[in-house]
């Protein structure tokens, strides 16, 4: 079971790492934001899976922090995104 969950974590990791290509390629800000968001969710998924696979409850706290701060960063992104700031 633990091995399978670790494998699952690896698969998620590889998937979102592939999604990084979109960050690198862009072309626009929207695509980069999307890829960053996918990476955030993927990171959370990896942590959650690892927490179960390695029986490390602390990783769940790390996932919780990550989720919280991802939501926070999302707000900052909305507030700071290009196009909005220039109106001030």
């Amino acid at each position, binding site marked *: 079971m633990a091995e399978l969950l670790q494998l699952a974590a690896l698969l998620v990791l590889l998937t*979102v790492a592939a999604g990084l290509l979109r960050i690198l390629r862009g072309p626009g800000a929207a695509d980069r934001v999307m890829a960053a*968001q996918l990476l955030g969710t993927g990171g959370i998924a990896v942590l959650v899976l690892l927490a179960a696979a390695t029986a490390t409850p602390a990783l769940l706290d790390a996932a919780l922090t990550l989720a919280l701060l991802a939501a926070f960063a999302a707000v900052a*992104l909305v507030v700071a995104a290009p196009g909005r700031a220039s109106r001030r």
Partner: protein
Amino acid sequence: MSLLLDGFTLVAVFAGILFFVAGTAGLLRFPDTSSRLHALTKADHLGLGLIVLGLLPQAGGVLPALKLLVIWALALLAGATVGPLIARLAREEDAPP
């Protein structure tokens, strides 16, 4: 019983991974930003949701299970906040003034 739960976990987790794969493929392959956005949001939310669902039986307690649910809820909230922004950014980029 435990075997059944383990089976449930695996099915849900790997189904979640499928959504992640589909989302990433969409992000990489779809031609324009708005269709990429559609692919992403579904994958994102359902993928993590299924994984969380699958892990619930493995959580080993009420508190960890609650944490898992909060994690999913937070990810949903973040996605819902950024979604309109991405759509707006995409519109602005597709149709420059």
